[in-house]
């Protein structure tokens, strides 16, 4: 933020909107309306206020030094720029977001690797017509019969048949 006339970055709202997940759409809309309202307000105000016609006033106002005094004080006046208190917070938020994003991306990649592994296993399975029950238990461990817990056929509680 270098000074008052920092150029406003052009935001591609369309691309932004694409990336918003559906459950955060309301927040996005609120942000957009706020942004639009602010930019409308800003556009409504002129960048520089109109200049005061000192010559005219000097000619018309009867009181002697008043116009001169006003003029002097007016040109000497410096309007203070408003202080920026929130940018630091935004930057901090950005850092945090970057960190949590990195974490999420990592977790996501781990999940993708898991899925890929499973997919690989499923794709390279032998066709069911050539499987024995042992092969099935190998491919899908949840169908494996527990011969220790239920030593007698059918190796699973009767209710599960």
């Amino acid at each position, binding site marked *: *933020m270098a000074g*008052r006339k*920092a150029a*406003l*970055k052009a*935001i*591609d709202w369309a*691309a*932004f909107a*694409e*990336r*918003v*997940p559906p459950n955060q759409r309301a927040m996005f809309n609120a*942000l957009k309306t706020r*942004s639009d309202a*602010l*930019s409308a*307000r*800003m556009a409504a*105000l002129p960048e*520089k*206020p*109109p200049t*005061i016609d000192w010559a005219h*006033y000097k000619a*018309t*106002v009867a009181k002697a030094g008043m*116009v001169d005094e*006003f003029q002097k004080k*007016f040109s000497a*006046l410096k*309007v*203070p*720029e*408003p202080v*920026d208190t929130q*940018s630091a917070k*935004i930057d901090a*938020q*950005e850092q945090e*977001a*970057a960190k949590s*994003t990195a974490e*999420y*991306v990592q977790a*996501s990649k781990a*999940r*993708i690797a898991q*899925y*890929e592994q*499973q*997919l690989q296993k*499923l*794709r390279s*399975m*032998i066709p*069911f017509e*050539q*499987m*024995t029950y042992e092969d099935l238990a190998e491919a899908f461990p949840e169908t494996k019969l527990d011969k220790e817990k239920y030593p007698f056929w059918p190796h699973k509680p009767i209710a599960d048949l």
Partner: protein
Amino acid sequence: VLHATRPLHTSQQRLAPLPPLPEKGGEVRHGLIPEEFFQFLYPKTGVTGPYMLGTGLLLYFLSKEIYVVNHETVAAICILSVIIYGVKKFGADVAAFADKLNEEKVSNAVAVKNAAIKDLETAIEEEKKEQWRLEGRTYLFDAKRNNIAMLLETNYRERLMTVYNEVKKRLDYQVAMQNLKRQKEQDHMIQWVEKSVVQSITPQQQKESIAKCILDLKALSRSAQAAV
């Protein structure tokens, strides 16, 4: 006789996947005699060889009474003919039915597997999409910073405008005050002059001015009539 000390399929090293069982069993003629027997005898005795052998053996057993014909023979003939008739007529249908049952089981399993594959693929797609979404977080922060910049800018401009307006108001007030004072003075003076003039018109002057007005009017009316 299986060797008990040579267990099969206990180590992981085995032919996997198990080679599939053959679709059909070995060829047989007349449901009993394997085709290999006929092929075996073909070079020496040709096509009719095994049949001759069979007929000869049968006649030998019958004539020498190695096989004795008694009541059980008749029973065997009846039972076997019924069985053969039943199998020939209904065999295919029963086989198809059994195959259908098996087919259903297998297709269920295959459907489950396909569904699982599809689910995994969509899950991977979703994850990738979420990652792509995350890349757009810079937009959010840019928007926020923009908002802040706009707010500050707006505030500054408002301040400038306030200053300008205030100064202008004061100067305009002075000008307006002057104008008003002048106006009031003018009005007052006019009024005072009028009042004094009216006061100074004595009754004598009033009569004279009224007579003159009547004379003027008469002259005007005469000239107006002439015009009409």
